[in-house]
């Protein structure tokens, strides 16, 4: 077993375990931390899968961005002095049923599927994946990229509209 393989399975295990933990744990904070761990492990897998740029983005945006926002959210919506950090579970059976059914089905169909490479062996894999990615992003994917910009703008405006309303209600 090579190092890469070991690391791969290590990350897999960490991601899986932390995800399970996330489902089981009842504290929101622990949940957020477990999610961070899970995402970091996934980032690790990205690195192993030759997607360094994605991995970095993952760490930056998820761990650095989204999770900070989420923790803000947690703090704003829970009263720390009391014990509302503890999250109750409900509809557990339904959840298990749906998730279990979904998982079993997915595993069943994925396992049956032989995924084959589409690459012509003649063409060598790109040396610098980040460069390729950048060029493709700004040529072929320029349009979605622009729309994504608009999306971010609108999200910003939307969030601000909703948030500003909170202020106006308070005053």
């Amino acid at each position: 077993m090579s190092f890469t393989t070991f690391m791969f399975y290590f990350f897999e295990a960490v991601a899986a375990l932390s995800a399970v933990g996330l489902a089981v744990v009842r504290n929101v904070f622990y949940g957020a931390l477990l999610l961070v761990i899970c995402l970091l492990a996934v980032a690790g897998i990205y690195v192993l899968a030759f997607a360094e740029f994605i991995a970095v983005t993952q760490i930056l945006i998820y761990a650095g961005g989204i999770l900070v926002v989420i923790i803000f959210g947690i703090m704003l919506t829970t009263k720390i002095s009391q014990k509302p950090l503890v999250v109750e579970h409900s509809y557990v059976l339904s959840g298990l049923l749906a998730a279990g059914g979904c998982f079993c089905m997915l595993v069943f169909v994925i396992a049956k599927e032989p995924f084959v490479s589409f690459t012509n062996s003649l063409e060598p894999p790109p040396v610098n994946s980040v460069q390729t990615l950048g060029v493709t992003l700004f040529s072929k994917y320029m349009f979605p990229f622009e729309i994504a910009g608009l999306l971010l703008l609108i999200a910003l405006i939307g969030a601000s509209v909703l948030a500003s309303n909170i202020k106006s209600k308070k005053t």
Partner: protein
Amino acid sequence: MFPIEHVLFLAALLFSLGLMIIIIKRNTIMILLGIELMLNASNLNLVAFNNLMPEKMDGQIFALFVIIVAVSEAAVGLAIVLQVYQYYQTSIPDSVSDLKE
């Protein structure tokens, strides 16, 4: 190289767990976390599949877009959650159910 199926299984697991979290957790923030988990499952798939044809970066770019969308969703989502909290003083989704039959 590790077998691609194993990444897919992990993704499936994350996806299912995300689903489960969304259904069972009695806290909106936790549900948000579940959604992130589901989106990550997709990203894992995309990155893994990208390796089937590494000369094109379609999968990775898609993953990038997914992350962007996840960001904006999270932003708007949290704003909404905060607003709901403002009105209902709770983040338990079941308690936020004035609108029903």
